[in-house]
Structures are given as C-alpha cells and as structure tokens.
C-alpha cells in the first residue's frame, strides 16, 4: 500500500512538473500562435541553470555557486528566458517557419553542447553536486517527496492562476487579436513583434521553471533528460488537452504522462524478451499517432478554448 502511495506521489510530482511546461507552451502556441519546436531547450536551460547556480562547487566544470534554492530557481528561469529572447529576437519578425526551425535547432544544439562541453556542465555524465533543498530537515524518504509534491502543486496552481489572469487581461486579449489577425491589430497601433516576443519569453520562463523543479527533484540532470522526445510529449499533452485552454493543458499533461508510463510498464512487462530493444520505438510511434490523430480528429483538443467576448454589444 505504501509502495503504491509513494509511486502515486512520484507520478503526480512528475506529471505536475510537466503540466507547468505544458502551460508555458499553451501561452506560446495556444494563446499567441507561436510554434516552439524546442520546448526541451528551455526546460533544459532551466534545469541546468538551477543546478549550476544551486549546486556545490565542482572541480571539473564551472558552476556550483551554492545559492539558496529559490534564488537558483529564479536564475534558471532567467537563463531560459534569455535563451528564448535570443532566439525570438532573431526569428519572430520573420515568417513563422523560421521560429519553428530555429527553436528545433536550439534544442538540438543545446543537447549537443551539454553532451560535449565537459567544462560547462559535466558533459555526457551529467551535472552532479546538487543537494535537494531542505534535505537535512525532511530526509530522503516519503516525507520529503510528499513535501516536494505539495510545493510543486502550489507552484502549478500559482502558474495556472497567473496565466489565467494574464490571458483575461488586456494583454491576453491583444495576444488573441494578433493570433487571429495580425494586420487588424497592427492597424490599431499595436506592435505584434514585441508582443509576440514577450509571450514567447514568458512562456519559455515558465518552461524553465518546470525544468528547475525537475532538476531539483532528481538532484541531477544529464543530456539524457533533454532529448527531443520530451518536446513531443509536452506537445501531445497540449494537443490532447486543448490548445488555448489552461485546464486542458494540465489535464492533458496528466493523461499523456499516465499513458506514457503505463505503456512503458506494459511493454516492459509483457513484450517478449527479444523485442525489448524495440519498446522505445513502439512508444514513439504511439506518441506520433496520438499527435496526428488528435489533429485530424479533434484539433481543438478534449477541452477546447473558450472564446470570450470581452465587451458584449447591445442587442
């Protein structure tokens, strides 16, 4: 029973962290219509940034500034935001293909850099030397994981309410206006490029926050944690949940993560030994099928965006 409970805590923690990333993507794609092909780069920037700033000093690579965890987490979010700002400022004013390709490229390059640059973040063997915050009070067991989960759930709710507020504010209205008709927005004196860039950076900072929590939960991050698959999983979460709907994004995150972990468990349990090598491929095909069939069958997702009329006219 305790085993099941502790697995449930573990599962909910990871799903909630991924839900935060899906919320960040929803601001970019759902509300603003920006394609991010490299979610994992911003997630990874947050994770690496947080662990580098908050970890103990290491002899073989830079970092280890031993900062207090909230400050390190904030630093990780800033790293993710800066990365997004650089990519965004180069591409957002161009036709949308450029953003798609560049974000995809930045994820490839980021993973490649982390795998090779031993001096920067430990290279392929990953980033060690980070101690989980408050470990001396809470220990390493069930109590710690429950406390961590409570904090993650609190952050998830905060991000949710922050984004709901943002989307219903005049700024959110502007985002939808630009998404629907850029020229109309421009004719009203709005600057679509700046507003898109803001939304892109804010969304990426939220992804960085998710990465910083993920890194702290495992107290470790390596290039294996920032493979392109994570981007596809987070997309699947948003597409299934419903682009433009924050509740949908959270629901989609839990649903897809449950499907992913259970399919992995079923395959490892019941697939014949000689096909075990291929279980990864089968799971990848499944994620691809989920993305394509959802787009064909129900592109608005399970929870479609609720279109609001800001100021209903008089009848």
């Amino acid at each position, binding site marked *: 029973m305790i085993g099941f409970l502790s697995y449930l805590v573990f599962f909910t923690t990871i799903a909630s962290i991924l839900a935060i990333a899906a919320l960040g993507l929803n601001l970019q*794609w759902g509300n603003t*219509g920006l*394609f991010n*092909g490299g979610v994992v780069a911003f997630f990874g920037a947050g994770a690496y940034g947080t662990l580098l700033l908050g970890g103990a000093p290491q002899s073989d690579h830079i970092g280890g500034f031993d900062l207090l965890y909230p400050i390190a987490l904030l630093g990780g979010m800033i790293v993710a935001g800066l990365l997004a700002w650089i990519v965004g400022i*180069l*591409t957002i004013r*161009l*036709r*949308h*293909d*450029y953003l*798609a*390709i*560049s974000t*995809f*490229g*930045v994820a*490839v*390059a980021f993973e*490649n*850099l982390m*795998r*090779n640059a031993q001096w920067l973040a430990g290279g392929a063997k990953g980033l060690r030397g980070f101690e989980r915050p408050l470990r001396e009070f809470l220990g390493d067991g069930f109590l710690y994981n429950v406390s961590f989960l409570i904090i993650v759930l609190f952050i998830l709710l905060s991000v949710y309410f922050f984004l709901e507020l943002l989307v219903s504010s005049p700024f959110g209205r502007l985002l939808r206006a630009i998404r629907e008709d*850029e020229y109309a927005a421009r004719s009203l004196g709005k600057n679509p490029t700046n507003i898109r860039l803001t939304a892109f950076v804010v969304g990426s900072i939220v992804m960085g926050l998710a990465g910083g929590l993920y890194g702290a939960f495992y107290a470790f991050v390596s290039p294996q944690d920032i493979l*392109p698959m994570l981007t*596809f999983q987070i*997309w699947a979460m948003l*597409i299934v949940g419903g682009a433009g709907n924050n509740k949908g994004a959270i629901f989609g995150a839990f649903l897809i993560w449950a499907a992913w972990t259970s399919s992995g468990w079923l395959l490892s349990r019941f697939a014949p030994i000689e096909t075990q*090598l*291929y279980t990864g*491929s*089968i799971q*990848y*095909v499944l*994620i*691809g*099928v*989920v*993305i*394509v069939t959802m*787009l*064909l069958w129900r*592109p608005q997702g399970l929870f479609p965006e609720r279109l609001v009329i800001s100021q209903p006219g008089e009848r």
Partner: protein
Amino acid sequence: MIQHLIDGILIGSVLSLGAAGLTMIMHILRFANFSHAELLSIGAYAALVFDQIFKAVEPFFSEQIGAFSITWALFLAMFFSLVLTGASAVLFDFLVFRRIREKGDELSMVFASFGLALIIRNLIGLSFGLSTQLYSKDIVFATVFSRDPLIAFKLDHLATLSITLVIMLAIHLVLSRTNFGYSLRAVGENPELAQINGIDLKRTIIMVWFLGGGLAAFAGVFYGLTNQITPMIGSDLVLPVFAATIVGGIGSIYGALLGGFIVGVAANVALIILPSGYSPSVPFLIIIVVLLIRPNGLFGESRI
C-alpha cells in the same frame, strides 16, 4: 582543408536535393515540413529492398558498373525508389496534410509533420532493425588523387556528384521551360490568382509532393552510399536540410540547391576548428549567422 572542402561538397549534394524538395513544399504549402527528411530515409531503404530483389532475380544485376561499387541492381533500384518515395509523399499528403490544410491551420501542419516523422522513423526502425546497413558489403577504398595536399575520394562519390548536377540541370529546365514550372511559381506567388488563370491547384500540389519525394529518394540513396543506412537518417539530416533552405531563402529552389552545398562545405570546414562532437550543432550556428546577416537568405522573399 581541401579534403574538408571535398567532403563538404559530397554531403552538399545530398542536402541540395533534400532542400530543393523541401523548399518547394514550403513555397506552395507554406509550412515547415519536419517529416521531409524521413523521405530520404524511405528512399534509402526502398532502394535497399529493390536492390536485393533485383540481385536475387537476375544475377547479371549484381555486376558492378565499370569501376564503381554501384551495381546495376542499385542503379535500377534508385529509379524504383524514386517512384515509391514520391508516391509515399503523395500518400502522406492525402492521409494527413491535405485533411489538416482543409481545416486551414498552418501551425497544426507543422505539429502533424513532427508526429508523422516520429511514426515513419520508428516504423522503419521496427521493420528494418535499428542497426546500420550498407548497399555493398565490399570495402571500397578511396582513390588517392594527390598525396600533398592529401586528396582522396571514392569513385562512387564522383558518380553521385555528377548525377546530382544532371538532376539540377533537369530541375532548372523544368522550372524555366515547362508549364509545370510556371504553375509552380504562380501557385507560390498567389494561389487564388493562379487558380483563376486555370491552374489546377490540387494537381500542382500532388506534382510537388511527388517531385519532392523523388528528389529525396536520390538524396537518401546518395547518403546511404557515402555514409550508411540507419533509421536515424531522417533525424540526422532534418536540421542540415532546413539550414540549406534558410541559407538559400525559404521558397527559392535555386537557393536551396546552392544552400545545400554551402551548408555541406561550411559544416565540414567548421570541423577544422570545432571538435567533431559538435557537428550536430553546426547547422544551427549556420542558421543563426544567416538570420543575423541576411534573414531572407540568398534568394528569399520577405513575406510573412
């Protein structure tokens, strides 16, 4: 240095053919197709299968052509692979992209292309195995053309390069001399106006997919000849091929042909300074450099 240049030109011919097909799709359907590189993979594997069938059917086909390691079977298989890959590109459009296009969302097309790429890549891995394969198990030695500076390449490479140049000439003739070439440009400029002038949009789109797939098939076979055939061909080449379209300017076929060589050479020359582990990042660096100095590429138009 010269050797890096030559290697760059060789991989450049693969990227050129891949990018030319991709940029055509981006020109008329206006979305970044992340599954295009999987067509190279399909082309390489299709040629492998046809090659083995022909060898089994008729022993003569196992003979090598002249001094090349390319057999008659493989030569013939290339054309069968062209048809099959072109047809699968049309099929993917029919099954996925056309349906999403009709709902009218460009961004969903990009997502769908990623999903499709995942499906194709892993189905290939499941059917052909994850290990690498080769067209010919014989070891082909590079011919040394000069010892100082050291210049060496395989005769096969000379063949692939010449075929690429012939294909490029053919593309040029089609674009500048045929009705299809005109309608392609017209549809890219303004689909509505093109239709008013009697261009069959659906037919043009089918032709573009077929042609893009056919070019990808040749690129895939050439990649298999110079490197090896693995299910990861698509994921390894997707970024370099996109870099080539951006260097040339998205939508410009001539730009893509040139861009492929530029990216191939730049990526190889960059490895003089950078450790080879960084080679997957080089296409991204090239994209950043282009965006900084000339965002619309060599021949691109600046449209949103």
